[in-house]
């Protein structure tokens, strides 16, 4: 009972809790409103961050990673066509052994389908990787592959929520929101948590980066990177016909009025969040175009990441974490489809090859670039979808969902290099060895970031909530 309040108490201490009324007023009035404004107008004020819910907070223990980049692959990429090499599929093509006779989303009756893609061995670890990921393949010696992932249901909406918020139902805080709540951010000019995708938002949209019942400051900020115009990545980023000085004076007045109101209503969390959000909006107008402007990178770096939208997203992700953003969630989409990898139902060859091509170079570039800049050691990169796809076929060329076993890989911040953990059965359907549930993965991500998933709680609606609910085992075996 003692520890579980730690973070909540910290938040309450800053915003309402154990302060006298006078202290609280001072802290809120001066700490958030007034001093915040002074700082955003260019005046440095010592200690202003202490009043902000996004101020950096001490983790529970020494972290292995300070930042997270989540490369989210909505729709369910097939493990046996990407990173979980199963040569037995070719030997038993067309058969339906009892061990793969498990119902997924649909009750398909077809036999085993070998991967249409070739596999080769890479790196010192000799990892087998599919030909559709030739660039990521060159990075296998940086990666820990977790082949024994499993989740609760083989359906996208629920599976995606489980991955990103740790529950099948919405209205739970997202992983990124929990991390920002637990750790704060190391930037005052950008949100602590940025979610991005080219074209479609992943299914569930806001829920994937939402704060739910956590304070509003921990919500992810969504940016659509399709157009890649730094001034237009966020709606209404620029005001036409009003210079910056005029807007500053307007904002100063607004902040003063909001502060007077804050004193009148006393300790309204919404209003505190509003003042913060307003100030951040102002700063974002100056900082966002810069950080999203990839033309500020060298020709060489841009070439490394390639021309794909996702590749540019990877480059922006690196720029964001360099600026102190805590969590970046970059979801793949190549058209308007919100579960991109689900094209695997009808056609693994076309669907998966095109999707892998859209992200392979960018992801590999991100790993190489982070390493070259000395950032990989403290940046955790996690790649994966909400489930995988069955080794049996659905129709002639596709595969149905598979929540019994799939692959997620991790690189950087505190994970082993050139390592594979857990295994599916010989055909790749079910996780059988060292099984890792989504809750276990989330517990492990929090652990690497220096947070104990059992202590990171928030009291809401009469009970203490956690990202991992009442589950979760830290997979210490993947920690370097």
């Amino acid at each position: 009972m003692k520890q579980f309040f730690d973070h909540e108490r910290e938040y309450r201490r800053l915003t309402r809790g154990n302060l006298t009324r006078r202290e609280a007023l001072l802290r809120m009035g001066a700490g958030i409103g007034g001093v915040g404004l002074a700082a955003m107008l260019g005046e440095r004020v010592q200690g202003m961050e202490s009043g902000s819910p996004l101020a950096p907070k001490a983790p529970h223990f020494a972290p292995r990673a300070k930042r997270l980049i989540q490369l989210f692959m909505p729709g369910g990429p097939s493990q046996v066509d990407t990173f979980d090499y199963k040569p037995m599929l070719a030997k038993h093509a067309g058969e339906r052994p009892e061990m793969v006779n498990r119902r997924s989303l649909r009750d398909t009756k077809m036999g085993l389908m070998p991967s249409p893609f070739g596999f080769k061995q890479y790196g010192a670890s000799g990892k087998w990787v599919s030909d559709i990921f030739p660039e990521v393949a060159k990075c296998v010696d940086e990666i820990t592959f977790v082949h024994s992932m499993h989740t609760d249901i083989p359906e996208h909406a629920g599976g995606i929520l489980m991955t990103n918020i740790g529950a099948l139902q919405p209205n739970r805080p997202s992983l990124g929101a929990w991390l920002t709540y637990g750790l704060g951010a190391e930037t005052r000019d950008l949100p602590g948590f940025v979610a991005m995708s080219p074209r479609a938002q992943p299914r569930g949209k806001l829920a994937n980066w939402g704060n739910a019942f956590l304070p509003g400051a921990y919500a992810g900020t969504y940016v659509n990177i399709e157009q890649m115009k730094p001034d237009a990545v966020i709606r209404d980023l620029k005001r036409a016909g009003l210079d910056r000085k005029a807007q500053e004076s307007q904002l100063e007045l607004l902040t003063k009025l909001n502060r007077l109101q804050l004193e009148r209503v006393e300790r309204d969390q919404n209003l505190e969040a509003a003042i913060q959000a307003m100030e951040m909006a102002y700063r974002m107008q100056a900082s966002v175009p810069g950080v999203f402007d990839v033309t500020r990178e060298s020709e060489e770096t841009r070439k490394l990441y390639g021309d794909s939208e996702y590749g540019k997203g990877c480059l922006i992700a690196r720029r964001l974490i360099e600026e102190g953003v805590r969590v970046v969630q970059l979801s793949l989409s190549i058209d308007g489809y919100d579960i991109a990898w689900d094209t695997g139902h009808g056609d693994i060859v076309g669907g998966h090859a095109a999707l892998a091509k859209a992200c392979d170079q960018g992801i590999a570039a991100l790993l190489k670039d982070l390493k070259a800049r000395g950032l990989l050691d403290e940046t955790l990169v996690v790649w994966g979808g909400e489930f995988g796809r069955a080794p049996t076929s659905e129709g002639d060329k596709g595969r149905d969902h598979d929540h019994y076993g799939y692959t997620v890989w991790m690189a950087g911040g505190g994970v082993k290099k050139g390592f594979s953990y857990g295994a599916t059965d010989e055909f790749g359907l079910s996780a059988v060895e060292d099984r890792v549930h989504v809750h276990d993965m989330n517990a492990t991500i929090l652990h690497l970031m220096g947070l104990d998933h059992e202590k990171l709680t928030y009291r809401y609606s009469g009970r203490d909530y956690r990202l991992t609910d009442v589950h979760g085992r830290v997979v210490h075996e993947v920690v370097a």
Partner: protein
Amino acid sequence: MSSRYDAEKFAKDGENRWLWRMHPRKLEAEAWRDALLAVSGELDGAVGGPPEDDVLASRRRTLYGRISRTGDVFATDAFLRLFDFPAAVSTAEQRVTSTVPQQYLFMLNSPFMTARAAALGEWMSKRPGGVAEKVGEAYWRLYGREVSAAERALAGEWLGNEPGAAQWAGYAQVLLSAHELMQIP
């Protein structure tokens, strides 16, 4: 029950565990947009008729915005989503309340807000009396209360003695963006 602050009760129960006041809440997106149009004198209160694909280009009540059941298709969807209106793709038993910088970018920079601000600013400039009287009327119109001495002083300082249209509009935008308009008392 009002969410109004009471110093004596607050001293006894600052967390509001014993529910001496309503927890402070925010207006929903629809009501807030309607309120912006209402206080600027621009709301078209007509009943019935076809829905509007883009409520930001309309002066009708937000109720008449067209929303999509297959994702954010219409401009109305994007606006509503920004202010926490749940997507109509699945059931939502309750609205979540988010407070994010993009909402303030909307208030600071969007053509919708600047148009409302211009209208309210013009209305204020035409009211009888000096700056103080006009500001006092605006406070009743927007927040249903008397302007405080501190607020009147801030307004006077910001607007000066003979504000032009741009200053009135700028001031009006601040009043429209203030948390108090979005707050349920």
